[in-house]
């Protein structure tokens, strides 16, 4: 047997039956490894051991003869004598306090949490109570720490759970988590919004209670397929993908909306591979289904497309009609304007010219030569303005005239133009070399005007040549046919080439070569209206070449 850890050796000679009980008690109290006190029925301390003196901070003498009540904290002290008396009447070995937290008051005024065991011993001198006091400060501290740890753990678990909940709820997919009984534990926000349900309405309820048989299609296999898929997951503990199903959703107005879903059910396994939860994930494929025509939908799709196209065609034809109407109105306005110009602008000019002539005729003899010359200048000015107005009107008329496109024998057309211009050839030596001209598609009257203007220009600007040379031809260039007129006339400065085709733009002085500056503008306008281009090449005193195309129209002949 192990020796007790205190200083006094066991008194072997006193192990006799006549050893007085109080001595034995003293000895035993000292032997207890905890603090212990002996007290009498009145609550006076008879003896204290070394451990109790250390725990309570009192010396042996300070304790002995004093009431135990003094060791009870003041707030409990008044009740203590009653407890004591009650114990003395029914003395037995038991813990003191009946579940109350007990505290001992130390000499320095501090309190320590304690557990106290009470043991009654009958002696000749009366009842002696052995009180064993255990300091439980460490245990209390450990308990508190444990509680704090537990609370912290609990909080962290709650936080983590909430976070997981938030994760699940925020997942972009459509998820619900089911128990093996198919009760809904959690749902993602996307799922709620797609199914038009609220979390509190469905959580805790059975899936098949929340989403009963498809109401619009009684014969739908959706529900039974879902049920069998979930059972498959439960039995095999493996993920199961379901075919796309139609399941209509009742919207907030109480009406059903046609919806198509692609569901996948996956198990969440516990430690022993049992299915703890099922994650039911669905993808809303309504848009995909509706845009992907099945064979039977083809006709309907065609119908929709045709209707759409018809609507678009109708809208654009309406637009075209409206623009045509506006164009017609604009053309009418322009016609009225030209008509008015041709009448009203000419009348005053006629008066200027007519009365100048009248003056010259009636009073000419009375006028000095200079006066008659002035009258002549007035008349020339008026007449020139008349010509300008006429040319401008021609230009405007050609611009808005409807194109009457037909195949044109260019050779014939140019021949006719040259015949018309033959008066200009009188008394001149002009060599006109006409190559074979490719036929064209175009408006004969307008193209005749083009040739007329270009050829009369060529004749005009070769007037000072002793022998004028004019070449006419056509050549294919890419997919275009290029027509050209080359002359050996005055030519022009290429620096001003861009001014050639402007209205009223002239590169020559009127006294050198007459003209209004409208001819080439007309040429350009007509060529452009045919979708072609016109350009010129020249050098001062070395002639000019004019080219024009009519788009790719020659290909169509």
């Amino acid at each position, binding site marked *: 047997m192990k020796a007790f850890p205190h200083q006094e050796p066991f008194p072997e000679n006193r192990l006799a039956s006549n050893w007085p009980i109080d001595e034995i008690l003293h000895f035993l109290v000292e032997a207890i490894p905890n603090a212990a006190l002996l007290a009498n029925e009145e609550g006076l301390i008879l003896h204290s051991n070394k451990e109790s003196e250390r725990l309570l901070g009192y010396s042996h003498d300070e304790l002995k003869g004093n009431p135990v009540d003094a060791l009870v904290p003041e707030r409990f002290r008044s009740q203590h004598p009653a407890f004591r008396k009650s114990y003395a009447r029914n003395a037995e070995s038991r813990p003191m306090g009946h579940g109350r937290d007990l505290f001992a008051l130390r000499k320095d005024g501090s309190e320590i949490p304690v557990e106290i065991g009470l043991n009654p011993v009958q002696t000749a001198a009366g009842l002696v109570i052995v009180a064993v006091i255990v300091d439980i400060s460490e245990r209390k501290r450990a308990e508190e720490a444990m509680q704090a740890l537990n609370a912290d753990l609990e909080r962290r678990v709650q936080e983590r759970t909430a976070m997981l909940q938030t994760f699940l709820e925020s997942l972009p997919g459509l998820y619900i988590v089911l128990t093996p009984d198919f009760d809904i534990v959690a749902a993602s926000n996307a799922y709620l919004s797609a199914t038009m349900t609220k979390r509190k309405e469905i959580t805790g309820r059975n899936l098949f209670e929340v989403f009963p048989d498809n109401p619009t299609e009684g014969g739908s296999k959706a529900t039974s397929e879902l049920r069998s898929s979930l059972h498959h997951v439960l039995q095999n503990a493996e993920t199961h993908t379901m075919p796309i199903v139609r399941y209509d959703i009742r919207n907030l107005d109480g009406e059903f909306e046609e919806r198509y879903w692609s569901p996948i059910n996956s198990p969440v396994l516990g430690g022993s591979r049992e299915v703890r939860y099922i994650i039911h994930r669905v993808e809303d494929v309504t848009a995909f289904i509706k845009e992907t025509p099945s064979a039977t939908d083809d006709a309907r799709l065609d119908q929709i497309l045709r209707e759409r196209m018809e609507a678009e065609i109708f809208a654009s034809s309406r637009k075209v009609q409206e623009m045509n109407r506006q164009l017609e109105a604009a053309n009418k306005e322009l016609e009225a304007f030209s008509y008015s110009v041709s009448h009203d602008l000419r009348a005053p000019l006629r008066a200027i010219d007519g009365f100048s*002539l009248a003056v010259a005729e009636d009073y000419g003899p009375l006028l000095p030569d200079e006066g008659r010359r002035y009258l002549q200048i007035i008349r020339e000015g008026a007449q020139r303005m008349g010509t300008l107005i006429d040319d401008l009107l021609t230009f405007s008329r050609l611009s808005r005239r409807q194109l009457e496109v037909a195949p044109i024998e260019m050779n014939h057309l140019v021949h006719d133009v040259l015949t018309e211009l033959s008066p200009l050839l009188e008394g001149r030596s002009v060599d006109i070399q006409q190559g074979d001209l490719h036929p064209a598609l175009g408006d004969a009257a307008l193209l005749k005007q083009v040739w007329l203007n270009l050829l009369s220009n060529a004749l005009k600007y070769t007037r000072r040549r002793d022998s004028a040379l004019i070449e006419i031809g056509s050549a294919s260039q890419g997919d275009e046919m290029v027509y050209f007129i080359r002359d050996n006339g005055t030519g022009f400065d290429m620096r001003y080439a861009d001014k050639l085709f402007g209205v009223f733009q002239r590169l020559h002085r009127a006294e050198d070569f007459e003209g209004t500056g409208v001819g080439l503008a007309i040429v350009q306008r007509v060529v452009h209206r045919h979708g072609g281009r016109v350009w010129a090449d020249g050098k001062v005193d070395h002639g000019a070449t004019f080219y024009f195309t009519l788009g790719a129209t020659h290909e169509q002949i």
Partner: protein
Amino acid sequence: MNKSEIVELLLVEDNPQDLELTLRALKKANLANSIKIARDGAEALAFLFGEDGQDKRTYENGPRIIMLDLKLPKVDGLEVLQRIKADPRTQSIPVVVLTSSKEQIDVTECYKLGANSYIVKPVDFEGFASAVRDLGFYWLLLNQAPRIVG
């Protein structure tokens, strides 16, 4: 019947300067003997058909020729032309249309309505005067207008 009552030419012209120049040209050609002038379409119609349009007058005394400007106030030249050519009493009177317009649509319309000649009044007055002279001679002197004998 008094010779002065005979109207050889009805000139319908609103522009006073054009009117004066036309008269001058006619006078120079000695064609200005008996000319009735109307300054707008309504006046021309009133002269030809009476104010109420029911005039029972005969046309023995002319006009033997009508020179008609197209652009007229009130009733325009085309309408006057149409009325002349639609009425059996006047439809045989030659009508020479005088106009500043070279617009093809006018020319076509005038001939469609039965105009006998068409003179574009050019800015160059000499050209106009000679055209008036030539046409005047032609219709008044060379061409025998049908006479309606009452």
